[in-house]
């Protein structure tokens, strides 16, 4: 295959030299698959709609918080909490797209770093002199901080409502919600403002090309934030000790599985090219791999193997508690089993897929110090 490609390249190159065409136009990818169409589908059918949906849910969160702070009634409190869960769930559908403006501003760092630091949150609330733009405040903002404030700041709802309505706490909660809105709006505005075209037209095959970059972002998300943060770390895969208090949504307690499922199914949909708008199937990594398999006349269906791994993970997931914390405490073997299935796909994605697509990994294991 490589030899054949080289041969064709030489012919094309020779041909190109006798012509005024820029060389790039006669140097196609090794395959006939259109990366541009895939990028277009990702931008228009997945990423931009998912951000639009997320921000719309953040708007609802903002409205319900305003309603609650105006009238801290029990129904308003419940609506506030529900809209928080809804927005947190929608966040899971965009978290993996840390590219462009999101990458530039570090959207995920300001949105969903957990475990949150309760002492720092309380200190920020007390002295009211906080700068949420500081990296040291990653652990005192975003959804995990709201999780603590809406669900953990007291033993029962009455105490929490009381706490939330004290002026300093209200100010802090509003600042957190506004910041989520501001940052994600900045990202969506950028997509709508010109980044979309830049993203789609950067359809080559190099370390800085859109496909290579987003596939890396997707893998990084899958490995670090889905597999490790949501499952592996609480289950003690890395430290050897279970760490049940490191689940996502520690204080709201019963949503950790929901958040995981939202992220997991978004990852699968991205890979399989499922439109966020209408669920129809479009141009995807799966198709890309299938086409390469066809070109190579290979028996190895990489895409099917990845989907099989995920299917196995889904089967394990059925019996797992809605509350990952309880699952870790009561029967961690199931969490470990889930981790193992997720990990099998990492190997297929990172080795088999990247090799087939000729994409280099652009992130390394952190040093840990």
């Amino acid at each position, binding site marked *: 295959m490589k030899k054949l490609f080289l041969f064709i390249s030489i012919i094309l190159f020779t041909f190109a030299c006798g012509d005024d065409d820029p060389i790039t136009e006669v140097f196609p990818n090794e395959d006939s698959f259109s990366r541009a169409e895939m990028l277009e589908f990702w931008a228009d059918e997945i990423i931009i709609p998912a951000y639009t949906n997320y921000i719309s849910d953040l708007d609802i969160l903002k409205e319900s918080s305003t309603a609650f702070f105006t009238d801290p009634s029990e129904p308003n409190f419940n609506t506030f909490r529900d809209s928080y869960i809804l927005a947190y769930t929608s966040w899971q559908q965009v978290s993996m797209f840390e590219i462009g403006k999101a*990458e*530039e501003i*570090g959207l*995920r*760092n300001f949105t969903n*770093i957990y475990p949150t630091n309760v002492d720092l949150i309380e200190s920020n609330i007390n002295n009211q002199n906080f*700068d949420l*733009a*500081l*990296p*040291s405040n*990653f652990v005192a903002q975003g959804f995990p901080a709201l999780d603590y404030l809406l669900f953990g700041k007291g033993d029962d709802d009455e105490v929490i409502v009381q706490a939330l309505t004290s002026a300093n706490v209200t100010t802090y909660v509003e600042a957190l919600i506004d910041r989520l809105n501001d940052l994600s709006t900045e990202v969506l505005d950028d997509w709508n403002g010109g980044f979309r075209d830049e993203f789609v037209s950067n359809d080559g095959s190099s370390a800085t090309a859109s496909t290579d970059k987003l596939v890396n972002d997707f893998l990084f998300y899958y490995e670090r934030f889905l597999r490790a943060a949501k499952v592996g770390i609480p289950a003690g895969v890395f430290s050897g000790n279970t760490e049940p208090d490191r689940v996502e949504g520690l204080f709201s307690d019963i949503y950790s599985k929901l958040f995981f499922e939202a992220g997991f199914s978004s990852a699968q949909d991205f890979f399989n090219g499922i439109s966020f708008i209408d669920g129809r199937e479009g141009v995807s990594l799966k198709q890309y791999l299938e086409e390469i398999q066809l070109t190579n006349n290979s028996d190895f269906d990489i895409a099917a193997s990845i989907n099989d791994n995920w299917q196995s993970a889904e089967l394990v997931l059925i019996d797992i508690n809605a509350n990952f914390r309880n699952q870790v405490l009561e029967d961690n073997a199931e969490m470990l089993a889930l981790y193992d299935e997720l990990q099998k796909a990492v190997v297929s994605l990172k080795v088999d897929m990247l090799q087939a697509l000729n994409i280099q990994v*652009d992130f*390394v294991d*952190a*040093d840990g*110090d």
Partner: protein
Amino acid sequence: MNEGPNPTNELENPDSYQFLRDGASTVSFSGQTERIGMATELVDAMVNFESTEEQLLEMYSNQTASGADANPFSDASLNSSTKSVKSKVAASNDLFSTNSVESAEIKEALESMIKAQVSEVFPNQNELASLGVAGQIADGSSVRYVNASGLEYNQAVNKSLIGALMVDQMLNNYLSTSVLDEGSNIEDNNNGIIADGEVYTNMEHKWDEAFGYLFGAPGADYTDPLNTLGGGAFLNKYLARVEGDEDFKGIANEIFEALKLGRTAIVTKDYDLRDEQADIVIDRISEVIGVRAVYYLQQGKIALANGTLGTAFHDLSEGYGFVFSLRFVKNSNTDAAIFSKSEVDSFINLLTAGNGFWDIDSATLDQISNDIAAKFDFTVEQAGS
């Protein structure tokens, strides 16, 4: 004794680093364990914003500014110790016994970074770092605290100590014949004359002290140290990192085997074999420092290209310390330092010129990497990933 067909090695290398005389262990390196413990507390305290300059300097020298006894450590046994980090920085027999000028300069270089952490970085704890301004910068979801040039003093001090304390003492002092064979060491060792009030001969002890800087961290199981490789800080940790790179796999075992066999050779009074093993350790430990210096410069280059400044600065800060440490590495063939003071100084100058990491370019990082790799048997590519 192994009577098998093993012409170059007639000794049986024991499985573990255990050596006995009359049933009692002769292995001892408590001074090394203490210094590693002190260095650990020092670098931790450098990122505790409550620390004062006075406390940090006391941790460095284990005495007050006026030379009185100090108790700066949380571990009481370190406070009662008469040893210190500073007294063994750039203090090897081979490199510094007649070069106290440079020794003082290196001690001072570390001390000034410790002070600057308090005077430059601490006041900007809650500022965002920018060109020319010290403060915070994000490295992934971690927070790094850098000076106005983007350098993390705590990382620079941490990694510089690997060279200036551990490697210097190990290679240029305890594994050197000038120290192993000092005074009547050979005669005493030949006749089994043990040091005053101890169970070991002086030569045995010197060798163990070299061993201790690599495998003697507080609480470590030194008898079979490869099991917990990387569990310690400093040199131990970075040997593990290099071992983890496919291009260098086996290096940890090679070093451990050589340390064991060399110690065995002392017991059996085979000093040629001892020196062969010392040479292996010298060359491989030097390689560890060279590899990590190039690794961090290359990782920093990649991170700069990706636009992740905080990650780049963190890598380059670690790289700075390993580059600083190059001054202490040695070539067993020439029996001399691999890098001169002026070579290392010029690397450091390139890293810190102008606005430091804020405007360093990939060509400079490649240039330093190439210059380093050229002195070793590895390539920039092998070390850099």
